[in-house]
C-alpha cells in the first residue's frame, strides 16, 4: 500500500499510464534519419513554392512565416512551452528593421542585424519574467507581454505610425561579396525570393543543429521532466531562457524580412497574430522543425485560396485544427512520416 501516495508529489510528471497514452505523440515521430533530411525537404518545398505559387509575395511570405513557425516550435514542440505572444518578436523585428531602414541606412544586413540583436536582448528580458512559471501561466504571461507590446506600438505612434502602420520603408540594398542587389519584392521578386530562401535555409540548419546539440536535447528532456533534468545538474531555466531568446531572435529575423517584403509594418491585435502562427505549428506538427514550416505553407495556401470562394473559410481551418489535435497530434508531419508509411506497410502486408 505504500504506493497510494498522491501523484502531486511527482512534480507533474505523467504517470506511466498517462504517458502510455501520449506515447503515440512522440515515439518515433521524428525518426533520426529525418533530422538532417529536413533540410533537404525544405529545399524541395522552397523549389515547389517557387514554381507553383502564382503570387510572388505569397511565395516569399510562406518562407518567412515558415521560419517564424519553425522558430516558435522550439518553444512549443521541443520545450513544451506554448507561447501565446509570439507575434511580439515578429512585430518587433519588423519595427526594428523598418526604422533602421527609414532612419539609419538602407543596408539590409544592418536592418536584419538590428532586428535580430535587439529582439534577442528584449527576449532575454521578457523571457526572464515569463519563465518564472511554466504551463498555462507561461502562456498567459507571454500573452500579457504581447498585449503590452501592442499597446506601446499603438500609443507611440510618432515612432511606429500607430494603427496606421509604419509606411514608406525604403527598398533595402543587400551587400554581397563583389556586388550589391536591391531587394525590391515587387519589381524583382525572384531575387528577393532567392535571398530569403538562402537566409531561411541557413537559419533553419542552425535550428536543426540547436535541437540536436546537447543544449537542445536538454530542452527536450526538460519538457519530459524538469525535476529530473535539474537532478542531472542542469539549470533548466537557463536552457529555457536561451531557447526563448533563440526563438525570439528567429521571429525577429522573420519580422525584419517581412517588413522588407512589404516596405510596411502594420499593426493588428497581437493575440490574433500569435494564434495564427500557433495554428501553423500545430497544423504542421510539433515534433519536427520542418512540420511547422509545412504548416505555414499549407495554412497560407488555404487562406489565400479558400477565402476567395468561401467567406467562412476559418470554419474549415478551425475544424481541421480540432481534428488535428484529436486524431493527428503530430499534424501533417506525423501524417507524412508515420500514418502514411504505416498505411502503405499494411497494404503491402495484406497483399
Amino acid at each position, binding site marked *: 500500500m*505504500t*504506493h497510494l*501516495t498522491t*501523484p502531486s*508529489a*511527482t*512534480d507533474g*510528471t*505523467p504517470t*506511466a499510464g498517462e*504517458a*502510455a497514452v*501520449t*506515447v503515440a*505523440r*512522440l*515515439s*518515433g515521430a521524428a525518426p533520426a534519419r529525418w533530422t538532417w533530411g529536413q533540410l533537404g525537404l525544405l529545399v524541395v518545398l522552397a523549389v515547389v513554392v517557387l514554381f507553383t505559387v502564382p503570387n510572388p509575395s505569397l511565395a516569399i511570405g510562406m518562407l518567412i512565416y515558415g521560419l517564424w513557425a519553425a522558430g516558435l516550435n522550439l518553444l512549443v514542440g521541443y520545450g513544451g512551452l506554448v507561447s501565446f505572444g509570439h507575434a511580439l518578436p515578429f512585430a518587433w523585428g519588423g519595427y526594428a528593421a523598418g526604422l533602421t531602414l527609414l532612419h539609419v541606412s538602407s543596408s539590409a544586413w544592418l536592418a536584419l542585424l538590428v532586428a535580430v540583436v535587439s529582439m534577442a536582448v528584449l527576449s532575454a528580458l521578457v523571457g526572464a519574467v515569463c519563465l518564472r512559471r511554466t504551463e498555462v501561466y507561461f502562456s498567459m504571461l507571454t500573452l500579457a507581454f504581447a498585449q503590452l507590446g501592442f499597446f506601446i506600438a499603438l500609443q507611440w505612434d510618432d515612432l511606429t505610425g500607430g494603427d496606421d502602420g509604419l509606411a514608406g520603408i525604403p527598398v533595402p540594398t543587400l551587400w554581397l561579396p563583389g556586388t550589391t542587389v536591391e531587394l525590391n519584392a515587387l519589381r524583382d521578386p525572384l531575387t528577393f525570393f532567392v535571398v530569403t530562401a538562402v537566409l531561411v535555409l541557413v537559419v533553419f540548419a542552425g535550428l536543426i*543543429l*540547436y535541437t*540536436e*546539440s*546537447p*543544449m*537542445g*536535447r*536538454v530542452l*527536450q*528532456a526538460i519538457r*519530459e*521532466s524538469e*525535476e*529530473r*533534468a*535539474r*537532478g*542531472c*545538474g*542542469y*539549470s*533548466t531555466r*537557463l*536552457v529555457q531562457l*536561451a531557447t526563448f531568446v533563440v526563438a525570439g531572435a528567429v521571429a525577429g529575423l522573420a519580422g525584419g524580412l517581412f517588413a522588407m517584403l512589404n516596405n510596411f509594418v502594420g499593426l493588428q491585435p497581437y493575440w490574433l497574430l500569435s494564434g495564427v502562427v500557433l495554428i501553423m505549428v500545430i497544423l504542421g506538427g510539433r515534433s519536427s522543425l520542418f512540420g511547422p514550416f509545412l504548416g505555414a505553407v499549407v495554412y497560407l495556401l488555404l487562406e489565400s485560396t479558400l477565402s476567395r470562394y468561401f467567406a467562412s473559410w476559418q470554419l474549415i481551418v478551425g475544424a481541421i485544427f480540432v481534428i488535428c489535435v484529436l486524431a493527428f497530434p503530430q499534424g501533417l508531419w506525423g501524417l507524412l512520416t508515420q500514418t502514411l508509411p504505416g498505411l502503405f506497410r499494411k497494404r503491402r502486408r495484406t497483399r
Partner: protein
Amino acid sequence: MTEPILTAAGLDRSFGGIHAVNDVSLEIPQGALHAIIGPNGSGKTTLFNLITGHTRPSAGRVRFAGEDITGMPYSKVARKGLAKSYQITTVFPLLTVFENVRIAAQAAAHSYVFWRPADGIRAVVAHTEEVLERIGLAGERDVIASNLSHGDQRRLDLGIALATSPRLLLLDEPTAGMSPSETAATVELVKELNRDVTILMIEHKMDVILSIADRITVLHQGEKLFEGAPEDVKSHPRVQEVYLTGTL
C-alpha cells in the same frame, strides 16, 4: 581518515508547527553504503529533500565534499556530484532509454553546448553505453522509456543518476514495487555500484537493508532514534519496538 563526504548537522524542518525533521545529524564517510529506515511519516523523504536542496531547512547545515550546500538549488547540488534516484520513478518518459542516460551523461562536460550535434560527442556516447551495460538495459537502448516494464524503469531511473558520475548517490527506495527477482538483481547492482560511489539510501525492505548496508540510521517521528551497524540495529530494543515489530 578523510573528511566525510556528507555531513548534516542539526537539520530541522517543520511544516505548520509539525516537526517533519527534528535536529537530525548525519555523517557519511567516503565509500559508505548508508541506509535510512523508519516507518511512514518518519521524515526520511524530507531529510533527503533537505540534503538535495528541494526543501530549505529551518535550522542546521549540510556540507557536501567539504562545501556548505545548505539551501543551494537542486541543480547546483547535483552539479557538485550528488545524484538522486526517485521513489516514484522519474525518467524522461518519451525519450529513448539511450537518450535518457545520454542526457545525464553529457551533463558533466557538455551542459550548454549548442554548436555541435550531441550524438557526435564520442566520450558521452561511450559513457552512456557503459552505464547502459552496467544497469543491464543495453538491449533496450532504443525503446521509449515509458514503454519499459516497471522494474526496468526503476533501473533506468538509477542509471540516469549513475550517468552523472556522482560522488554520492541518494537512492529513495530503489526496490519499491519490484518483484523478488527484480529486487535481487537491484540489490546486486547497488552492491556493485558501491565499489566506486558512496551511497545513501532509504529502504523499506528490511532484508535488503540488512544484507547490504554497512551503517543504518533509524528515524522515528522526525528524530534520529538510533544509528549503528546492521547487527546492532537488529538487536536494539527501541528499534524493534517502534519499527521491526509488525512490519516484517
